[in-house]
């Protein structure tokens, strides 16, 4: 069983097809770097996987379940461009709220643990609005990882982060990988992505133009993928 199976996914915005039959399989425990030029459809695909958007045609199965079922939704963690926490709640209140939405048994304890993991226990009662950008991002990561999701969907997670914030996120991603979670993340920073990824997929105008394991040549030459599998200008 694959962790993610997307088959022939189409998504129209009006009559404009942002996804034109994208198909993707991701193995359990893999870490997939989703590459593609601006407007290729990365965000659109990830939002469909996270059930934030319905595909026009095609089918998506997550962890063997239909993607819109509550069970599937309960087992994924999503981190988009926005951090997805409330500015007027404290760090711990935010996480407790999301714990309740996820129907966890002990939201408070889970929240405190999650804050511990990202190094925010010291400021757990501070309002999110007062956090600096790095701390906010940590809180967002804690939110997305709250329920130890089996599938993590991350849209450009490293953008605009400094070295320390990147290190925290990478550590958490490695932990998740080592407990067997599957990761999908989109990015434009090919070099950084390649250091974590086990698999690579390239979206080109709404289709998957390349998908396969990461190789040495990609690591050494970031432009290789676009040159060999991307569309010409």
């Amino acid at each position, binding site marked *: 069983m694959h962790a993610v199976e997307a088959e022939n996914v189409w998504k129209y915005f009006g009559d404009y097809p942002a996804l034109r039959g994208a198909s993707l399989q991701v193995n359990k425990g893999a870490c997939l770097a989703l590459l593609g030029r601006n407007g290729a459809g990365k965000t659109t695909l990830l939002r469909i996987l996270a059930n*934030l958007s319905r595909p026009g045609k095609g089918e998506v199965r997550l962890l063997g379940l239909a993607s819109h079922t*509550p069970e599937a939704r309960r087992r994924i963690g999503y981190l988009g461009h926005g951090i997805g926490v*409330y500015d007027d709640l404290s760090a711990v209140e935010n996480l407790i709220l999301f714990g309740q*939405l996820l129907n966890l048994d002990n939201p408070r304890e889970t929240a405190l643990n999650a804050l511990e993991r990202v190094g925010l226990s010291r400021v757990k009662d501070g309002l999110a609005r007062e956090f600096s950008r790095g701390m906010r991002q940590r809180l967002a990561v804690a*939110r997305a990882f709250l329920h130890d999701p089996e599938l993590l969907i991350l849209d450009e997670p490293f953008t605009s982060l400094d070295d320390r914030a990147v290190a925290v996120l990478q550590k958490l991603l490695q932990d998740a990988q080592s407990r067997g979670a599957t990761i999908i993340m989109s990015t434009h920073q090919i070099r950084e992505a390649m250091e974590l990824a086990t698999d690579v997929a390239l979206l080109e105008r709404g289709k998957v133009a390349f998908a396969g394991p990461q190789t040495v040549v990609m690591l050494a030459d970031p432009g290789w993928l676009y040159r060999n599998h991307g569309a010409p200008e």
Partner: protein
Amino acid sequence: MRAGFAAAFAIARKDLQTELRTRESLTASLSFSLVILVLFSFAFDLGREELYAISGGLLWLVYSFAGALIVNRSFARELPNDCLDVLVSSPAPGWAIFLGKTVAAFFLLLIVELVSLPFFGLFYNISWWQSPGTLLLVIFLATWGIAVVGVAFSAVTVNIRLRELMLPVLLYPMLIPLLLGAIGTTTALFTRDPEALKSMGSSIQLMIVFNLIYTSLSLYIVEFILIV
């Protein structure tokens, strides 16, 4: 189902908590309703008889203006930081999100209404406390209707430009039957006109039917508009 209600409760509590903590839209909406009460009394220079005759209309105009401000923020509150995405992608069903937000809006509205009621009485010299039970019932019914329809439209208009303008344009015409009932009963309660008091029953029925229709419609349909 159980999980849905738990989620709705969590969301309602969150909305109320943030609102009462920052007190922003609450104080703003409250002072707005006071400002229009004052503005009205400036604009309409009327005798006592005539004032009583329009008292119900005045009250519900103020309430529906204040209400539009509050429900406007209902889903808009989720926009910063893309919190709406997190709500929608969570296992909580659409109806639970909607229910939670409606309940929160209902209570916020109720606070604004109950606080501004005495001021209304004061400014316009109207004795509003004569049958508190019935008045409360009317306020409850109409407020629930405003909250349900308002929050539903707040979900519809959350992503559009000109939200502040579009929401009232859609909301007020939709509320007319409800306001009709509310205005009629409230005026009857203030003027204590025996004729009017008699026909109150059917007005209250109208409001109940309105609430039933729109509540069930919204709960059922909201799933389709939250995930496009």
